[in-house]
């Protein structure tokens, strides 16, 4: 039995490594399709060895590659939008209402099942421990033109917000400031971010879970030291809906 297990591991490792060829490889691929234990062993080996690929210097693809990919996946899919803007508190920058309507359109698309899926990926896939009962929210923030550029987590239990840029960004002198728009209130600042790396901020606002459900995070570009007015003064460049991880 131990010998069989060892043979299986050896075959799985060699399939993951890529050393098998011809009939031997085909037989192993077929076993991967029919034998769950073997398939799991191959997956584990792929995972163990994947960091080897990260030792190679990244090679920037020619821009034409992305254009060909876009052409191959067909026309842009329509992102479902929510036609109504959330209530906006009176008394603040009424001239910006149209802007915030744009900002919040399209962010109500996330269903509870989607958040569940994400949570299950994280629960089973990452060594983050038992999340049951934790009150965490995540958002990927993207711009009108730019792809998802920030990943932000709001952790009510730890009273902290962690934000990581997903891509390198050149913002010039401007400082990115993170805002939460939730509960029908005007934007509230969560703090200043670092375009060059991850940052964890203490959460000083009292945010209710009800507020965060359906809430939106946004990043505006502000002068050094942050917005002088307590409201976004520069352009809002990224935004994204909060997903509950429960």
């Amino acid at each position, binding site marked *: 039995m131990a010998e069989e297990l060892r043979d299986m591991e050896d075959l799985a490792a060699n399939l993951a*490594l890529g050393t098998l060829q011809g009939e031997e490889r085909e037989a192993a691929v077929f076993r991967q399709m029919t034998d769950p234990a073997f398939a799991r062993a191959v*997956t584990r080996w*792929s995972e163990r060895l994947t*960091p080897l690929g990260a*030792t190679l210097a990244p090679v920037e693809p020619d821009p034409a590659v*992305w254009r060909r990919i876009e052409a191959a996946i067909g026309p842009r899919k329509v992102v479902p939008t929510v036609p109504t803007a959330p209530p906006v508190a009176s008394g603040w920058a009424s001239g910006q209402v149209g802007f915030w309507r744009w900002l919040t359109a399209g962010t109500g698309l996330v269903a509870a099942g989607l958040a569940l899926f994400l949570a299950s990926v994280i629960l089973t896939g990452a060594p983050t421990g038992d999340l049951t009962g934790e009150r965490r929210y995540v958002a990927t923030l993207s711009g009108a033109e730019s792809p*998802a550029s920030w990943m932000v987590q709001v952790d009510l239990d730890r009273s902290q917000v962690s934000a*990581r840029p997903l891509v390198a960004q050149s913002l010039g002198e401007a400082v990115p400031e993170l805002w939460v728009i939730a509960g029908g209130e005007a934007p509230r600042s969560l703090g200043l971010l670092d375009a060059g790396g991850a940052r964890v901020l203490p959460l000083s606002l009292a945010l209710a879970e009800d507020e965060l459900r359906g809430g939106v995070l946004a990043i505006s570009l502000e002068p050094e030291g942050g917005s002088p007015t307590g409201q976004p003064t520069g352009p809002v460049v990224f935004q994204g809906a909060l997903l509950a991880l429960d």
Partner: protein
Amino acid sequence: METLQYTDEREDLAALLLGTARGRQADFAALYRTTGPRLLAVILRIVRRRDLAEDILQEVFVRIWREAGGYQADKGSPMAWMTTIARNRAIDSWRRADRQRRNQAAQEAQAEIDETVVPMNWDGAGDEARALQHCLGALDEPQRNAVVLAYVEGLTHQELSDRLSCPLGTIKSWLRRSLWRLKECLGDG
């Protein structure tokens, strides 16, 4: 473009895969910008030709776009899942290529690539990479080279035997012992 790496990259990439599965092109584009250059490096090392490698990268991302909805944690980390798609595609393509083309590509690449030693740069690697680095370091150098060359260049047992000037049986038993020791050292079942 510079890419940033984090130890909890797994969650970031899973979120982008989820967005991709939901048809959000912005998330798919972010996934490409984050992982495309790394996957191209992996593919290029196997097929050794830039134009072919970029064709394969294109196929790989079209496949990721279509299959993102089928990704689950039991398929490994997002990076492992995508890397496996890329490597399998590159290896299949390389082995299908006719011998003449392969020889030509190998000659062209020879000036740039040392045939027996793989340069390793673990800077910016995460915890999992550091564990692998540590465990590879515990292997004897010829055995380590066999594992690394096999993975990075996608070589078969026979090609490893030719490259390292060792009998086929020796290569197989080296790999068998090395992989078993790696598994024990990584201690992850």
